[in-house]
């Protein structure tokens, strides 16, 4: 297993190099000149040129890329052009918000998605199955941005039962801790703050979970249908075990293997920052920060954030594969044989 992990980590290197090249070139080729944004409306052309020189933007592109990569290798992603704050510090400040939202969203997606998938598979070709399929289709095809706005209008604008934006009432905000407000408030026993943080995360988490939920529903249904046709399921039924017990304890447990992979991969993509969701709900995570920085041509922030997201995705992928191997011994054997 250790050899396998090391091999996967080595394979991640070219992936990360590729990502770094692509994001670096995209920012340099398609983004606007950051000098007017950084120096403001009163800056002269000479001042802007001096700033470009000082920040290496007039250096050859290869030199600029080399500087970026050598910095990144030492954990130094540079400073934001706009705020002069270290990019790594800014990303780490915002990361807990993204992690918290992603975890809650994936829990919602997994719980509802698996349940819908199981019901759909066990009631194949019934109206319930049709309803679940329609829900999954809607979830896959509905733009998150639009869904987010709808949820805000309905639950905050019309019903006034949930807050429309933000993470917590600022006066209840926990100080220090992990940065995961639900966890921090719970650990400190501040239940008022916990309730407030929970109420703030409902709408963005539901909006963000919709796509993943749809994917998990379809995967669970398909995997369950395969499993329900297996001999051991038929045998279990022939032995007179109750249908519900067979479905849950025999079929679902085995059907969950590919579903686990999908859940893991969905979590990886959610941790990459839900740019639209974070923007709509003013959720102060990495996604919103990247969007703001793209609009300001803040190259170091965008490059650093995308690289960090790529690293996270690679790690999550690896963790998912390791968990999969742990849950299904056949995978482990095949790796060892290979």
């Amino acid at each position, binding site marked *: 297993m250790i050899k396998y992990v090391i091999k996967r980590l080595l394979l991640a290197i070219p992936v990360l190099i590729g990502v770094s090249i692509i994001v670096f070139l995209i920012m340099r080729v398609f983004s606007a000149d*950051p000098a*007017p944004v950084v120096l403001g409306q009163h800056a002269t052309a000479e001042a802007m040129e001096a700033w470009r020189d000082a920040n290496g933007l007039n250096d050859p592109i290869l030199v600029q890329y080399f500087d970026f990569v050598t910095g990144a290798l030492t954990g130094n992603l540079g400073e934001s052009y706009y705020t002069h704050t270290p990019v790594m510090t800014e990303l780490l400040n915002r990361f807990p918000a993204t992690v918290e939202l992603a975890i809650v969203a994936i829990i919602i997606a*997994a719980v509802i998605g698996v349940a819908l998938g199981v019901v759909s598979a066990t009631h194949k070709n019934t109206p319930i199955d049709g309803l679940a399929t329609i829900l999954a289709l809607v979830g896959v095809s509905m733009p998150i941005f639009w869904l987010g706005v709808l949820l805000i*209008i309905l639950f905050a*604008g019309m019903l006034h039962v949930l807050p429309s934006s*933000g993470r917590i009432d600022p*006066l209840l905000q926990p100080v220090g801790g992990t940065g995961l407000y639900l966890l921090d408030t719970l650990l400190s026993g501040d239940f008022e703050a916990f309730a407030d943080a*929970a*109420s703030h995360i409902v709408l963005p988490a539901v909006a963000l979970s919709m796509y993943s939920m749809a994917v998990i529903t379809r995967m669970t249904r398909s995997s369950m249908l395969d499993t329900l046709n297996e001999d051991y399921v038929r045998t279990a039924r022939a032995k007179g075990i109750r249908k519900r017990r067979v479905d849950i304890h025999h079929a679902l447990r085995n059907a969950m293997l590919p579903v686990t992979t999908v859940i893991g991969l969905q979590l990886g993509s959610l941790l990459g920052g839900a740019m639209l969701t974070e923007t709509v709900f003013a959720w102060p995570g990495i996604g919103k920060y990247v969007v703001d920085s793209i609009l300001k041509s803040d190259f170091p922030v965008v490059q650093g954030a995308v690289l960090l997201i790529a690293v996270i995705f690679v790690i999550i992928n690896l963790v998912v594969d390791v968990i999969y191997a742990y849950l299904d011994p056949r995978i482990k054997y095949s790796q060892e044989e290979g």
Partner: protein
Amino acid sequence: MAMAEISRRRFVEALGAAGAVSAFALTGCGSQRASEGGSAAAGGTADTITFAQGADPRGLDPAYVDDGESAKIMCNIYDTLLRYDTETCDIVPGLSDLPEISDDGLTYTFKLHEGVKFHDGTDCNADAVKQNIDRQLEPNRTEDMPYASFVYGSEDTNSGVESVEAPDDTTVVITLRAASTPFIKNMAMALAAPVVAPSAYADGANSNEKPIGSGPYKFVSWSKGENVVLEANEDYWDEEHKPQTKNVIFRFIAENSSRVTALNNGEVDIIDGIDASVVPTITDAGNELFDEDGMNINYMAFRNDEGQFTDVAARKAFCQAVNVGEMVKSLYGDYATPANSVMPIWMAPYDEDIVQTAYDPDAAKAAFADLGITSCTMLTYTNPRPYNSIGGQPLAEAIQGYLADAGVDMEIVSYDWTTYQTKVETDKFDVCLYGWTGDNGDPDNFMNLLADTNVSMNVGRYNNDEYKALIAEGLATEEGEDRDAIYKQCEQMVADEMPWMLISHSKNLAGYSPKVQGFFYHPTGVVHLEGVTKTA
């Protein structure tokens, strides 16, 4: 194997349990505090006011920022030597009385109020003021001080501050390189001018993230992307501006519609950065609308130095082709006023007698035919701007329609604002959309745009020696009738020569809860919240 099976089962069970707990937490707690806008203090007055704006501040040290989002927060944390009157750009005493100005207009002597303390307990005295100005003067000035050259001038242009002295604890003497009437207004600005405690930036301290001022509110915290929290400075020296509400929170909500919903849902008390399209949503929910004239100009610049519009006759034909009044009413409703001058209507010395080129489509068509102009290119930005809340594209298309009626095919080339700022300097065009939001309420701040050698300020490259001479004269002339006459002459030249087609002055729009009292959005774009209260 048995152990492994149990573990796997527990793993799946734990996943399910976590989902169940989370679902319970989410649904069970969902209705908490949703419609509360802040907790109430005894006596019927809420102890928290929440202001929602579109973005984080760039920073909180006035020497290092140039954005309105920062200014709105900073003006509550810091004091300035002088301040603007509550609703106008007239100058009134701040940390100092009005200064004594020497006859040659070069020396300003400020007498500071005694006993003023910064929030950390250090003295807000003449030495602190001197240090604040000194750090923004050459050669101490650094490239990341975007407003230093505007407020304190520079050696290159022989403008601004030559030196600053603090002969005693309460006296500050500022000597200018050349007489400059707007300088006194610069001393009230929310950028570069506010006095920061030297301890906030000494020894590597980060004044941009942990500001220390002497203003009515003290900085408490800044959660990036979320909020800035301030609390009342109970020891504030100025009785007239003592803070009335215990906590002030600035929240950052990027989406317009989300800010509106937050206001209507009672999550925030005041929002800004809105456009006319959301006004009915705000007022229908029972909230109040603030809509006072802003300090801005929305204009279209001709390329005055090359191309088809170097000739006044061509520019006149263009202006005759566009029905500005109709267009402004149609695009902005009641929330912008057709521009009859470069300066906003309320700013002295606006002259109502000056008349811009009248709409005359037949004359325009004939003139274009005579001049052989059948097509042209317009550059525009896409984003909404403070002076143009609907963005550049709809405005460009409206002008395009009028031009088509006059027989001219106008191509529109649009970019996002960030890209656009470079494109207007590098790309070829006949006309471009632009605008300006004033800094200090002085006429020079508007009229000087057409004399500026910096292309990013003077995008139409208007270059008229007579006009420049008037601007130089106005800069050094004391406030009064003589100075007003100079700027009226400038306005008349703009009306006659049409380097710009003036479009509109937009109103400052903000929505606020009916529970809020004393709210006013200053024309300079800042919001002093010390006098604002909210009923519980």
